[in-house]
């Protein structure tokens, strides 16, 4: 009985998805450890002890508490690390949500970096431009946050419109709008009079919203994780993830959006306005990316160097592996987003405590990105093993009672031959015959 429930749990699709993601992550970490090993062995200033320390930090960097009196690594709960992890997770959760939500509706939103940049620009300009001695800082924060969302949404809807009206592939349009965003943002800050804003002793061109007294409330998190940059942004991100989950799975609008994503023709056939929904999907996705930027830059801890923005923000691209690892489940995105920033923290620990540098964690992230694309394959492998077992059981049962209900795969023109045809049971014909009589 207990065994039956366990195997039912293991056979569930969701379970397999989670397993596949965990396998991807583990392989990524192992590969990271191997890189640490190779680097350590080939470099003169890293001893074998150093290599071992590096490997331990790769797996458990988040629990690092520095070095003890004896000079060895010490581990334990480190509130600063955890707080910083949650802070860094916030924007990547949002871009992950953005990509995941677009994926669910059949769109590949590779435009998250551009939407993120536009969100950055709008929220910074609003947060710095509305004087907080006239308008309450809290209200400025809300305006800037909404402005970031709106800017991202507008930017996201451009590829959406091109796709809906002209059938231009959204991937291409997204890549182009990314670069347009990079240059628009550079130009806009360049011509703006924000250029000469400077805080304390910092040089200009650096924007920090605390200059105007605007920052995200902490909601007491700073006391939970003292010494870290954490703030209420992570809570907002989690709430957004839950809202997106509800939107996609519980509402008629979500049903429409997913219908368009799964089969645009069938959605149209059913009278669903497919074009509107494609634009709407991209706008929501863009808004989420914009919200991620707003939460990051309104935090009060972060600075924006506009003149370096000739490149696209990693946070936007990192949304893709975050979404893939979470199998596009909005709730899962929260966890994979936190995991990604945990790797970041591990990288920082590597840099500060050993002779390694943090780029090793980029290797790990890169491996995980590749593997997350393969996570479908891994999932199939996992289910393949299970299916084989199921067939053995089933054929054994069929031999016992002598009644198998074979239905040829030729009927399943809809799928590959390994998709079993579950219908046409033994009594199929007799029941229908009976109904007729």
């Amino acid at each position, binding site marked *: 009985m207990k065994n039956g429930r366990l195997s039912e749990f293991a056979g569930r699709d969701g379970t397999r998805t989670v397993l596949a993601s965990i396998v991807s992550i583990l392989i990524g970490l192992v590969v990271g450890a191997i890189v640490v090993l190779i680097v350590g062995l080939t470099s003169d200033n890293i001893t074998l002890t150093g290599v071992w320390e590096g490997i331990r930090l790769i797996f458990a960097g988040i629990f690092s508490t520095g070095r003890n009196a004896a000079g060895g690594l010490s581990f334990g709960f480190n509130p600063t690390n955890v707080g910083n992890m949650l802070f860094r997770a916030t924007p990547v959760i949002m871009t992950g949500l953005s990509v995941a939500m677009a994926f669910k509706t059949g769109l590949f939103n590779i435009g998250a970096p551009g939407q993120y940049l536009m969100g950055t620009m709008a929220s910074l300009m609003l947060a710095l431009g509305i004087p907080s001695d006239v308008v309450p800082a809290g209200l400025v924060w809300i305006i800037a946050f909404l402005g970031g969302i709106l800017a991202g949404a507008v930017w996201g809807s451009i590829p959406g419109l091109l796709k809906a009206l002209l059938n231009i592939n959204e991937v291409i349009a997204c890549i182009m709008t990314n670069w347009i965003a990079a240059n628009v943002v550079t130009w806009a800050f360049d011509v703006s009079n924000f250029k000469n804003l400077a805080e304390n002793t910092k040089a200009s061109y650096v924007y920090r919203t605390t200059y105007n007294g605007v920052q995200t409330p902490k909601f007491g998190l700073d006391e939970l994780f003292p010494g870290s940059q954490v703030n209420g942004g992570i809570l907002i991100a989690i709430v957004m993830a839950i809202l997106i989950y509800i939107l996609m799975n519980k*509402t008629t609008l979500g049903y429409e959006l997913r219908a368009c994503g799964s089969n645009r023709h*069938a959605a*149209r056939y059913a009278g669903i306005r497919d074009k509107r929904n494609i634009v709407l999907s991209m706008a929501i996705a863009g808004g989420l990316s914009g919200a991620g930027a707003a939460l990051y830059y309104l935090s009060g801890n972060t600075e924006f160097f506009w003149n370096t923005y000739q490149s696209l923000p990693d946070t936007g691209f990192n949304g893709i592996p975050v979404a893939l690892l979470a199998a596009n489940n909005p709730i899962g995105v929260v966890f994979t987003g936190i995991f990604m920033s945990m790797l970041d923290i591990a990288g920082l620990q590597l840099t500060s405590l050993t002779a390694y540098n943090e780029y090793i964690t980029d290797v790990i992230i890169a491996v995980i990105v590749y593997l997350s694309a393969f996570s479908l394959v891994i999932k199939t492998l996992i289910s393949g093993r299970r299916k084989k077992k199921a067939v053995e059981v089933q054929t054994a049962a069929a031999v016992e009672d002598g009644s198998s209900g074979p239905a040829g*795969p030729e009927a399943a023109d809809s799928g590959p031959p390994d998709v*079993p045809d579950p219908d046409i049971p033994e009594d199929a014909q007799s029941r229908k015959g009976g109904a007729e009589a």
Partner: protein
Amino acid sequence: MAAQPEYIIEMLHITKEFPGIVANDDITLRLRKGEIHALLGENGAGKSTLMSVLFGLYKPEAGEIRKNGEVVRIDDPNDATALGIGMVHQHFKLIDVFTVLDNIILGAESTKLGFLQRREARKKVEELSERYGLHVDLDAKVESITVGMQQRVEILKMLYRDNEILIFDEPTAVLTPQEIDELMETMRGFAREGKSILFISHKLNEIMAVSDRVTVLRKGRCVGTVDTKDTNKQALSNMMVGRPVQLEVNKSPARPGDTVLSVRDLTVPSRIHKKDAVHNVSFDVRSGEIVCVAGIDGNGQTELVYGITGLEKATAGHIDLCGHDISHASIRHRGENMSHIPEDRHKHGLILDFTLEQNLVLQRYKEPRFQRMGFIDRPNIRQYAEHLIEQYDVRSGQGPVTVVRSMSGGNQQKAIVARELDRDKALIVAVQPTRGLDVGAIEYIHSQLVAERDKGHAVLLVSLELDEVMSLSDRILVMYEGEIVGEFDPKKVTVEELGLYMAGAKRGNTGGESA
């Protein structure tokens, strides 16, 4: 070890399993040299699997294949070709942008120093097409020739490879009655020449007309092999389904009422070519009658339905439905009085990755009973889905939560029929509602459509199957090149007569012939 074994190919005790199903269970099939052997069975009976085993696409778990009495191994299609086995697949395996000649020689090109020897090949193909009366334009691109001609290309491909065992997988599905006759003649010619033919079909007329022997499969098992001359259609269909089947549609005369759908001068553009796919078409459908649009595939029937249902914008004309002008109405608005069983169940009819219950409310999720303030009411949808599944006998692995992709074609179609008929609309547009379905399912869907008619609904049926047209309809409209070229009473017209109109050889005034 006789010099001339009785059978050229023997498939003995073939068993092929797929996860969860035994597709072929101990099947034995023996093919004599020079015979036309039909393989009959419903969808899912295992016909295609068995042929795929013979053609080397699947490896059987048990059983052996013999050629001329000797055991042979067929691991891939190349082995099959080497043994002289050729196959015309149901869906042609041609490269659209290649010429006919290039398609024929592809994979068996003769080369000299790496250069194609097209001239030699052309001579051989020309000889073959002359000898068997298979006329094709060797220099035309495949994309520009008719389906019937493409099939001839596939046949020539087999002949070019000197195959002597020819497998035809549902070859008549795409052909006109005249083309079917030609194909039958060609097949008989092959048999006379000593080639052996395996002919897969579920169409009893054709099997009775052309085959020497019939092997019937049911649910992966061999029901028996009979000589065609000793059997009849009824006996074969009973063998195939496993119970007595009603081949004729049982229906009383129609009692047409008010006009439900009125189409006037409708013109719909084509997605494929520059001309109009539907040109100035006018007709009415009244309540309580089944009007059937007959024609060869690609003569504008699809676009006519698109125009009526709103999937494509009409460029001219008027459509009135239940007295309202819907010429420019949205799809959802039209759906208020119309249900639509679409031609392509995978493209339009279903969202394959959604569950059955989600598919069953595809148009209705916004109705108050299925949602509350924009939130989907899962329990009510579940209840409704269970009700439909039971009433229409839709079979699936996990009931309402089955992912539709995993269901068989027949049950997918049943789900669509259930959904559309339950919406209870004044007009039902049904496009090839029984395509690819087996006798049992066809019987069921036909009876449902007649029941709808008797309830006083108007049915507009588009079908490529003349049998269906003749047995189901109360009025027949024939479409040819985007126009309606004749209107007939099914009781007063013959299949041959319809065929002439469908092929464009004859045309009459609308309504003229039936009177």
